[in-house]
């Protein structure tokens, strides 16, 4: 199934399994969602579990928090992750601090359709996960595969904390994959070695993971065996997996679609510098999008984002260092 279908199946199976789980968001009921994820849900679960909400991100996230306070398991869909700015207080002040202040759980999931290569421009393409990685009390996940799209959504819904689930729009119909049936939970906080290698470690997540894998294939034709680590969870980061791969290969290339400065890659680079310095045989290298808003023109966006050839070039250069 596709990544999009995996999200739908995970949502549907959780709603069947647990009556506390419900979805809330704009255009998700009658219309089935801007991307069609919740198509058919209204008929199956009814209007009090599939809630067509006003155009009102602060209210929708706030209402999700309120329902979670009461022990429900809301999954609030932000139509585009970019619109979370309108709900910022609810996410970073109300939700993130809730357990710290009260000792009570807040089992809330925010579905965050994010990322570029969808010709979406500056307000429908952003990768703002680092805002939330900088916010203690939240968890942040970003699946790259259909299997993890399912597994991380199950984990997010079952987690007693607010989880921001960054689902990449370009991956929705990117390819078909085998996804395990039934209970397939990807634990939050565990990275995955997507490709084994010895020459260097390429650390990425989301849509860029696939570009990194293609770049690693290209480098392999030159005899360079790159290891590719899919972070999957950004908060908490899988420190052991990051340090493990770097200690194994001695070199680290970090690639993400989010803009470069103070992105998640900066945290990964700092972690490696602090904890794996003596294993390093070369500089820690970052490839990320330009420090600009996301351009609308496909030509400009191609120049904005890291591309496969660029990643392959960085792999070759770092391998040769």
């Amino acid at each position, binding site marked *: 199934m596709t990544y999009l279908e995996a999200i739908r199946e995970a949502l549907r199976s959780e709603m069947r399994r647990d009556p506390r789980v419900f979805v809330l968001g704009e255009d998700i009921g009658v219309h089935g969602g801007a991307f069609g994820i919740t198509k058919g849900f209204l008929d199956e679960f009814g209007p009090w579990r599939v809630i067509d909400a006003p155009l009102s991100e602060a209210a929708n996230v706030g209402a999700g928090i309120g329902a*979670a306070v009461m022990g429900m398991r809301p999954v609030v869909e932000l139509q585009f992750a970019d619109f979370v700015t309108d709900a910022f207080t609810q996410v970073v002040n109300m939700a993130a601090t809730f357990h710290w*202040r009260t000792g009570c759980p807040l089992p809330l999931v925010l579905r965050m359709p994010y990322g570029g290569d969808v010709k979406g421009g500056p307000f429908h393409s952003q990768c703002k996960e680092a805002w939330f990685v900088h916010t203690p009390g939240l968890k942040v996940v970003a699946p790259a595969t259909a299997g993890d799209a399912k597994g991380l959504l199950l984990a997010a819904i*079952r987690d007693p904390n607010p989880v921001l689930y960054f689902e990449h729009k370009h991956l929705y119909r990117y390819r078909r994959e085998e996804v395990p049936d039934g209970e397939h939970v990807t634990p939050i906080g565990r990275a995955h070695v997507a490709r084994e290698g010895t020459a260097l470690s390429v650390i990425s997540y989301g849509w860029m993971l696939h570009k990194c894998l293609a770049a690693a294939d290209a480098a392999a034709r030159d005899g360079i065996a790159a290891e590719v680590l899919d972070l999957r969870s950004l908060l908490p980061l899988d420190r052991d997996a990051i340090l493990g791969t770097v200690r194994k290969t001695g070199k680290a290339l970090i690639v993400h679609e989010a803009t470069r400065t103070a992105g998640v890659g900066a945290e990964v680079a700092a972690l490696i510098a602090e904890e794996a310095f003596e294993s390093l045989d070369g500089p820690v290298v970052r490839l990320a999008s330009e420090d600009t808003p996301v351009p609308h023109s496909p030509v400009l966006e191609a120049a904005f984002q890291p591309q496969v050839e660029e990643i392959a070039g960085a792999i070759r250069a770092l391998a040769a260092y």
Partner: protein
Amino acid sequence: MSTIEATSRAGDALTPGELLEMLYYMRLQRAIEDRAIKLYYQGRIPGAYFTGWGHEAIAVGATYALGPADLLAPMHRDLAAYLMRGIPARRVFAQFLDREGGLTRGRDGNIHMGDPRLGILPFISHMAASVPVAAGMALACRQRGQARVVLTFFGDGATSTGAWHEGVNFAAVLRLPVVLVLENNQYAYSTPLDRQTAARALVDKAPGYGIPGVAVDGNDVLAVYAAARAAVARARDGGGPTLIECRTMRMRGHSEADHFAYVPRELLAAWAARDPIALFERRLREEGQLTAEADRAMQGRIAQEVEEALAWAEASPEPAPASVAEGVYAASDGR
């Protein structure tokens, strides 16, 4: 859907014991805050301190309209509401003192407290942020078929925020069982009402959301109670939210660090003559509900409770520094 002026006739339905209980909570709020102001000026309360002087009739009148299973999303001038819904005075003092025994165990301060286990949403500094959350609490009750009502408080300044608009609109669209109590105390910090809104009256905002609005004398506890009782009943019956504008005056600074020179003294004097506790005491005395003996007994009980509560709080330890990293995340219970 029109704006109506409520009266305090509903007081007739209250028993003498209930009337005295309302007075008790109004006085208890004032007594705790009076004691805490002294602590603040002695430098014993870390950070800022906020009181609800002048708001006691709103906190008590509205909260008294709730049933046992109902829910509360209060703000920072409603101390009595917290007390009435089960938070003990000793934990309030421990909260003010940033002690382990406080509601947030030193993680947050002053009246930023609550207890979800008691159905009380803790308040945060972002005005009206509780309003959409209150709507969500009501949504959960509606989803489960529970006839519970959520009472939420906010100030005049809060009505200028997007969160307020969005929360009220959301509750109205879904006809959720929420009662919206606006504590119009004329000033948001130093900002007077005419710099807050161009509306003739804040209650006039209600028709814009398709909900009823009612304006009451916020210094008349029975008027507030009557309006809240009607709104709670309407919410419980599936009629959706009601906006209750309670008109009062903030009788001290925004916080105790604020000397509020921007408020005309004659305005304060006029409102001081209508102190909500004094008004209610006079009424109860005239009606024979508050005898000199009952009055003395209540005052004595409150004084003792305040001192015992403070002693308990002062004996509560400071939070352990080594615990600073604890509690950011909830551990999964596997359910």
